[in-house]
């Protein structure tokens, strides 16, 4: 095969030309030269090199895991027949076990309680989670969700600071995961009549909650229905948010419910457009008993916990958007270099170069937003919500650019881009639709805006 470096890309001078910045910069004064770099560098390595050393090493580990475990199984799982609730595709089970052993299911607590490198506690918890979401989403949305949704289920127990629940349930579950026996959690706020209303305060203030907790001897009995709960069919524990009997949403309380409890049933999982490795479960609660000790954060602390969890979790969801945009970009780049048209590679065409540049810029801008939000010591609602809607909208746009670039080949499953689109589309909907996330930005700004209104 001819040496690809023997000629420049069409429309460009060869890097060895004196007019190429690559060559020309050598003439700059040695003091100035380090200030303007022009060297080919792998974009992933470049981004990684900008992270603090520990996070960089973590990112490397996550990518290696994703490539060796998720990537080879992603396409097969995506097209497998819909599994009944509670049943996992054998390949998904393998991935779960391996992820557990590698510590990816127990990384919300540091060693020895969980698997997180204690030195990473120097960074906000959302940062390693965001790195994980991007790396996993880049290779497969469904497996990413399967592995990440459990963190969402653990988060209320952590934020509630309920040491009993951590000691009795979360830490043993983490140990089991690390032994390769996955013990997953799920997070259940959504109800058939409360999707956005479970995500934003104004709607919640007008809502009659559907899942109700009735006090009884030693605890509570939960009755009602939750829907679209990620991993809700395979989780061993589900954090169910319920109102106290006769009260409204201000009484919302988080209950740690074992999936095996009497009256707990998963009648179905949804047939989804994408992210098919993860089940979205409907959960029926018929007088499910929860002992008092498994109330997380105290009675009526549910709304606060819910909103706090969303502040943290929307940052990894934003990172999923980056992962999908990156997947689309990488597939499109590979295609543009592989596919020949009219005797030359597609990448030689100027319009293709323009598209790739656009995709690169959009993906990088999205990642910058996520890393900025993730680095913030406190998870701020406005920042997290803005990152969430912006990067996930970007992801769809970048997927569309990739599909346009692949042309009719974009429709093929083996080309992956069509799947990336299907997976990415969910991120504009869950964890609050992107419309609700926009309103969350304004909610946080409310007092400043009221001040402006008052002329202050």
């Amino acid at each position: 095969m001819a040496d690809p470096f023997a000629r420049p890309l069409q429309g460009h001078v060869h890097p060895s030309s004196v007019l190429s910045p690559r060559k020309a910069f050598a003439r700059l004064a040695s003091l100035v030269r380090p200030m303007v770099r022009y060297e080919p560098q792998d974009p992933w390595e470049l981004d990684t090199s900008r992270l603090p050393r520990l996070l960089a090493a973590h990112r490397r580990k996550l990518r290696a895991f994703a490539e060796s475990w998720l990537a080879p199984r992603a396409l097969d799982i995506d097209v497998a027949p819909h599994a009944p609730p509670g049943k996992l595709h054998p390949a998904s089970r393998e991935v779960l076990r391996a992820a557990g052993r590698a510590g990816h299911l127990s990384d919300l607590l540091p060693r020895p309680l969980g698997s997180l490198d204690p030195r990473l506690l120097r960074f906000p918890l959302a940062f390693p989670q965001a790195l994980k979401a991007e790396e996993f989403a880049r290779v497969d949305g469904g497996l990413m969700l399967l592995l990440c949704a459990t963190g969402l289920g653990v988060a209320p127990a952590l934020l509630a600071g309920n040491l009993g629940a951590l000691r009795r349930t979360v830490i043993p579950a983490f140990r089991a995961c690390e032994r390769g026996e996955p013990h997953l959690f799920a997070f259940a706020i959504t109800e058939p009549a409360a999707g956005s209303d479970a995500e934003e305060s104004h709607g919640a203030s007008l809502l009659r909650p559907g899942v109700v907790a009735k006090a009884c001897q030693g605890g509570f009995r939960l009755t009602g229905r939750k829907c679209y709960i990620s991993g809700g069919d395979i989780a061993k524990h589900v954090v169910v948010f319920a109102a106290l009997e006769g009260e409204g949403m201000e009484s919302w309380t988080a209950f740690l419910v074992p999936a095996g409890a009497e009256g707990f049933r998963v009648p179905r999982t949804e047939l989804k457009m994408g992210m098919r490795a993860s089940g979205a479960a409907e959960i029926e609660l018929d007088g499910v008993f929860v002992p008092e000790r498994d109330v997380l954060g105290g009675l009526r602390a549910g709304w606060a916990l819910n909103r706090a969890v969303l502040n943290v979790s929307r940052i990894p969801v934003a990172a999923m958007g980056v992962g999908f945009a990156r997947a689309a970009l990488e597939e499109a780049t590979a295609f543009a270099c592989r596919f020949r048209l009219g005797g030359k590679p597609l990448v030689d065409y100027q319009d293709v170069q323009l598209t790739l540049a656009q995709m690169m810029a959009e993906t990088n801008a999205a990642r910058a937003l996520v890393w900025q939000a993730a680095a913030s010591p406190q998870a701020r609602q406005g920042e997290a919500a803005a990152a969430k809607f912006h990067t996930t909208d970007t992801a769809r746009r970048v997927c569309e650019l990739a599909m346009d670039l692949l042309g009719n080949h974009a429709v093929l499953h083996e080309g992956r881009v069509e799947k990336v689109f299907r997976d990415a589309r969910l991120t504009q909907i869950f964890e609050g639709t992107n419309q609700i996330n926009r309103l969350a930005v304004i909610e946080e700004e409310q007092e400043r805006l009221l001040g402006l209104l008052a002329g202050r």
Partner: protein
Amino acid sequence: MDSPDQDAVLAEVDRFATRWLEPRCVRPELPLTSRDLDATLVEARTLGIVATADPGLGLWEDLDDTLSRSLRVLVRIARANAGVALAFHLESLARVLLRRLGFEAEGPGLAAVFGRYGIGRSALARFLAGVQLDEDDRALLLDVFGASDRLVTGHDGFSWLLWPAMEDRGTVRWCLTTTPTIRRHPHAHGFDELATFSVRPGMRRMGTDCTEETANRALFAEALTLHALGLVAIALGSAQRAHGLARSFAATRRQGGKTIDGHPAVQLLLASSRGAITSVEGSLEALGQRSIRGASIGRVFSVRAEAHPLLCRGANDALQVFGGMGYMRDVGLEKVVRDLNHLRVLSGSPPELALFVSAWEMHGG
């Protein structure tokens, strides 16, 4: 065609869509089986909606008349099921082209008027405008429209394939193949009821079937124009379906203390979906006022380049109105989004069509 005749045809199509097709498509997560699709095609041929060997008032027949009837038929069928509309369109197009060429063939056919990858970018515009081609253009067109595999999404129950083949000399020749080699690609993005397959036409031609070069080229332009119009019409019908579903849902779903169509966030989504549809309806209606001889391929491609991204955006916004339900296969919105994405990149993606349009304008096409 007289307006009363046209109305009668459209009423018949509407009846077919309402009584035959829609009841078979009530569960979007269960695509029409190949057998259902065969039966639907048989019914449509019998009713004269799809063009057959016997001339009639089927799709794309009566090309001397305005194009509006065929466009309306496709929009209506696509509103019920985009895949069925695409199957009707491809089969009818093949039949009509076959007739124009004076070829003969039994059974349903398929016209692969598109290339290996898109439509040959701006080189195609120069070719159709009769501009002297340079080496690059010729290489590109030969590559795209040569004898190599073509990626087709359609009904795979066809007996013959009609295709324009580019030749070394930079001329085009219509070919008919009765034994093409097919390789199926499972799990394509959209059109669950159809197959996506690579078809290798081979170089087999019916000796006397090859016609004279200028006529070939003109028919090539017509075929591309009709195909592009068909795809836009199908996309429009699908988007109308998504919009209708979103409107009804928004009027009943309550969140935030009222039905969601009372929230500006949802109104904006619905307006975006409506706006996309209105814009494409207007363009298509204007294009439909002409016969194929009066239709400019540049104008049609220009409309298509804009229409698909618009309709994709509109359908995504319609899906967004449904929140989580929109993501579920049994609701039907996600299928519309996939079908529209699929249509957008078939036979020339928007950027490629834009390159064509620019070159077409430059060369006074």
